[in-house]
């Protein structure tokens, strides 16, 4: 495994007026990393993801993707460089079929979406790749269904499929299992377990079971600062963490 981090964040700061939402955050993601980001509500987890993806501009600090500073880039440019995310609240094209949703992402990745004159054979390839991806996530049967009519759990999987279709090197998962009924949650967990090995992944999740099963490193965020970080076992044993966050959770 390469020693160079694929995503390197240094001294990330952001405040809204007097409210500090990110303060001196340093994070490195190696290729193949599985990092969990936890913290109580309002700790700045989603803000952190928004800073990385470019939906918010940091006050200071650097974000490097493959050594190239991206903190001034527009969100879509970061995506094109290999930084993808999923949303805590589904952002899907609800009028289209599941397969079309993913095919559009493939088309965009292949720089094919500017074509103004009719669909070519490339579009068919986009659809085929989309179908394969849906098959691999276990929702291949839903390919022809309109997203609006899809059960919520499958919509969550589609949210992940969108990001995977971009073949990113860094993937930010913002509460992938949020709102999924527990009897369906195992399907999301299975997908998380089978994500490509070399992909660097940062996951935000409230479900401690998921985090401790999936992550090999955990970062605890509190009021925009890194409270502590370490291996899951260390974090679970850390009295400070138990006090602020895990208090009522049996791990």
């Amino acid at each position: 495994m390469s020693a160079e981090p694929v995503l390197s964040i240094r001294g990330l700061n952001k405040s809204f007026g007097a409210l500090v939402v990110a303060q001196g955050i340093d994070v490195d993601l190696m290729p193949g990393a599985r990092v969990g980001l936890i913290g109580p509500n309002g700790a700045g987890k989603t803000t952190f993801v928004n800073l990385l993806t470019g939906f918010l501009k940091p006050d200071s600090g650097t974000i490097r993707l493959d050594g190239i500073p991206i903190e001034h880039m527009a969100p879509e440019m970061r995506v094109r460089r290999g930084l993808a995310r999923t949303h805590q609240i589904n952002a899907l094209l609800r009028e289209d079929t599941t397969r079309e949703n993913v095919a559009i992402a493939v088309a965009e990745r292949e720089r094919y979406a500017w074509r103004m004159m009719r669909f070519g054979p490339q579009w068919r390839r986009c659809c085929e790749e989309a179908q394969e991806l849906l098959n691999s996530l276990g929702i291949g049967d839903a390919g022809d269904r309109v997203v609006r009519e899809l059960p919520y759990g499958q919509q969550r999987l589609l949210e992940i499929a969108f990001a995977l279709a971009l073949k990113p090197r860094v993937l930010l998962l913002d509460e992938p299992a949020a709102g999924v009924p527990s009897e369906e949650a195992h399907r999301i967990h299975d997908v998380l377990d089978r994500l490509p090995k070399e992909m660097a992944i940062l996951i935000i999740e409230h479900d401690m079971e998921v985090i401790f099963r999936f992550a090999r490193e955990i970062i605890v965020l509190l009021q925009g600062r890194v409270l502590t970080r370490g291996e899951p076992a260390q974090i679970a044993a850390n009295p400070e963490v138990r006090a602020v966050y895990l208090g009522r959770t049996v791990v």
Partner: protein
Amino acid sequence: MTTIPTGKTPAVPAGINWLGLAGHAVPWVIAIVYYFMAADYLTFGTQIMIWILFAMSLDLVLGYAGIVTLGHAAFFGIGAYAAGIFSIHVSGDPILGHLVAIVVAALAGLITGAMILHTTGVTFLMLTLAIVSVIFEYANQAKWLTGGDDGLQGMVINPLFGVYPFNIFGNTAYIYTMVVLFVWFLIARRLVRSPFGRSLDGIRQNPRRMRAIGTPVWWRLLAIYTISAAIAGSAGALSAHSTRFVGLDTLSLLTSGIVTVILILGGTRRLYGAFVGAVVYFYVQDWTAKISPYFWEIIVGGMLIATVLFLEGGLMDLGRVARNLFLRLRRSRTA
């Protein structure tokens, strides 16, 4: 490998779909038959086709890309004035003037679009209103260029290809407008059924999603806004050439309103909605205006309300709704 349905996007057809082709031929057959059957009303037919083209240009931004604008008259008017002014000061060649109008309108779309397309919703709507108002007032003040509220007069249009004059019977204008509309229709149809059109549909549904897959949303919107402005400008040029006059009203808010009414009436996001909407709008106006000059607005307004309330997809939905009703009736009878 099994073939995979490609959804909304058309798969390459195995053969020629004659029935579909016949359906597509209907508006053009009507237009040609009209030319021979209604030789005394060609000016009326030309006017309808110009508004079809204008409404179709609006469909590209409002229907397909979800850009809600009330400033589209700006591009229609700019196209009309560009064509008119060009014919007075430079050359009376209709095709050259038409091309100039298209380029000028496209530039106007590009510049104003670049200024305001980062905004959305009500903010964007207000900015389009502001822009069309500013342009209107400029045209009103710049009498030396536009003739102000007297309108632009003294246009001289050379015969088309040096052979066919734009006469008072309107034969040339009618055929010319029909051909231009047909060409733009083919281009627009290609455009909305391309990967580019597909991405616009995605932006309309969920811009946040499209940004997250790396779509340069602003650039895509700017592209369709510019193309749409060019088509609206083309409609304006046709209007100027066929009437040899450009009035301030081409730039007015009312013009923006009328084209929106036409499009909503006919149905958005199907290109043909503009055809249905414009024909219905002008025929209703023509008939009811004979009864009372004020009456027709009530009728059109009532139709618009009824359409919006009962036909989500505009009058283009009538066929589908009627079919469903028929099927339900038959089912209830057999049951």
